[in-house]
């Protein structure tokens, strides 16, 4: 059985800029794989290569065991793809949008009907089926976009930042839909800039400047955080961060809204840190050993 997605040492540059640097990713059947990284990290380039819109400079992408650049037609008729910032035909109704994509894949109308009922049950868009897509809320638009790409029942779906700019409630509903698809055996390859969505994936890859920094299950990656980590709980993290930057090496400090994290790379221990704070006369509510989050890991890896 061929793997749904297999990307091997893929590289792509635009002029002098290396956008993707030897990226290798595999996605198994029924798995949700999250490609996580900031804007400009190369997520969209990887995805566009995978869906046959770009030709790689070196390396290759395989879809169901076939090289994408050699079989673009096969990929295009079997993959489900939702591009970045994708927003449907605003002047067509929900139903017309669904029919249009069903028609493009030449699904007979009676089968489209059945499929639409399934998708309505899934997305709860039934009451809005005659409404124009432009008049839907942001969250509903995303659900409709997802439904459109599911009309032809693809076994593999690829989504580029699908939850970008969507409100938190709709975001969680959207991820609920992805989880349901994966339970039914659909493989999901999704990119996002939101670290908190990583826990909703089975496996993730952290990408930065075109390179995969780390890959694995979210828990596994976090457990692999190499150094002791302390969190300074304080009123004004900004202020504390500025003062500490002059005493501690700045690459050991991570500024968050909830406090300042110190990566104890020298393994000096909690005592040593408390001493430093006293000498610098920094007032804080407490210092404690902290469990690393994915954000801590990411900041540590891009150091």
């Amino acid at each position, binding site marked *: 059985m061929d793997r749904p997605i297999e990307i091997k040492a893929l590289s792509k540059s635009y002029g002098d800029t290396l956008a993707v640097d030897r990226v290798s990713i595999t996605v198994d059947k029924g798995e949700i794989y999250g490609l996580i990284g900031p804007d400009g990290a190369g997520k969209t380039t990887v995805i566009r290569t995978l869906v046959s819109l770009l030709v790689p400079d070196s390396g290759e992408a395989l879809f169901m065991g076939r090289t994408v650049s050699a079989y673009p037609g096969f990929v295009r008729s079997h993959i489900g793809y939702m591009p970045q910032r994708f927003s449907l035909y605003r002047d*067509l109704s929900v139903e017309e949008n669904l029919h*249009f994509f069903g028609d493009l894949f030449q699904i007979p109308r009676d089968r489209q009907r059945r499929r639409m009922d399934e998708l309505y049950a899934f997305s709860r868009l039934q009451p809005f089926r005659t409404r124009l897509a432009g008049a839907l809320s942001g969250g509903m638009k995303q659900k409709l976009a997802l439904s459109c790409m599911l009309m032809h029942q693809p076994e593999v779906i690829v989504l580029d930042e699908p939850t970008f700019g969507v409100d938190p409630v709709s975001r969680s509903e959207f991820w609920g839909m992805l989880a349901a698809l994966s339970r039914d055996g659909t493989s999901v390859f999704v990119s996002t800039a939101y670290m908190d969505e990583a826990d909703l994936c089975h496996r993730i890859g952290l990408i930065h400047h075109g390179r995969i920094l780390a890959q694995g299950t979210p828990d596994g990656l976090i457990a692999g955080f190499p150094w002791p980590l302390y969190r300074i709980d304080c009123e004004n993290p900004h202020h504390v961060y500025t003062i500490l930057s002059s005493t501690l090496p700045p690459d050991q400090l991570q500024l968050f809204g909830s406090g300042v994290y110190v990566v104890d790379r020298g393994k000096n221990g909690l005592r040593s840190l408390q001493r430093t704070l006293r000498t610098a006369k920094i007032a804080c509510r407490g210092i404690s050993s902290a469990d690393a989050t994915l954000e801590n890991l990411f900041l540590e890896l891009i150091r």
Partner: protein
Amino acid sequence: MYRIGYLIQKEFRQILREKAFIGLIFGMPFIQIVILGFAVSTDVRHVSIAFLDRDHSRFSRKIADAFSVTESFTGRGALTSERQAKELIDSGVIQAAVVIPPGFERDLLSGREPALQMLIDGVDGNSAGIALAYASQIVARLQQEAAAEARGGPPSPGAAAPVTLAPRMWYNPELESRYNIVPGIIGILVTMITAFLTGMAIVREKEIGTLEQLMVTPIKKHELILGKVIPFAVVGFMLMNVGIAAAGLLFGLWMEGSLFSLYLMSLLFMLSTLGLGIFASTMARTQQQAMFVTWFFSIFALLLSGFFIPIENMPKIIQAVTVINPLRYFMVAIREIYLKGTPVLYLWKEALFMLLFGLTVIIAASLRFRKRIA
């Protein structure tokens, strides 16, 4: 192949849902034909003219009367000096002045050739030229009368009678420029609508991201292009029919030739405009850019089409450029069919040029249009 049908169906849904489109298709031809048909006129009428009469003879008064009775000129009275003539032309009160020198009548009747001076505001060179031609006609007629009078009565047999030219204008006997302009407007409308709308419709899908989605479906490139182009060709034909109706109802100008000939020529012409639309869409990322590219090309096509300025009046080198302007051939074709009822057979040269040019544009643009991003 069915997929083209679905694309066309979708495109029409979108066109019909947009109220502005309906207004564009039906309102625009009417408004343009009404306004341009009445306003754009190369006929010169009511040129304000004044006279500086230094002869004060029967004949000099006759000249002033002759100018004043034609529609082309409106008499604005007598002048007292050349200075005044200059001032009035400068200030725009009059557009022309006729200076009749002293001894004009005497010289004329005695067979000498007296000079008549005409001062014309030449800012609008075209109108000035036409006004001068009208003036010359008037003066020539008077001269003949004077010659007859000098000989005393009608010309006697044996005497050399002056040759008169009696022109008869065919197809447009009154030389109404409107009859030339209105079919031209229909040609321009077709250019604008098909090129602009096609380009913008493709780029709009780029803007909202649906084009990227369409690329990752089984749809073929040519299906995508045809699915975009056919609806706007249909819109172009609808618009043309509205234009034909407007020309007939408003100006009583109905086509002499067959509708079929016009349709055939329009179809050949649209190859170029639709191709331009596709081309613009491959160059542009936003609808504004697409409009700009289309505008850039269509303004050239328009100015070098012979719509405003006859091609024969252009410098040789520019005339050579117009050879690759499909609108030039369509202008000829639409005017020929409209005014003369020329059968397609005699327009084979125009048809061939439009076909060759259209195919080249559409093929080149389609090659630029890729189903890949880069």
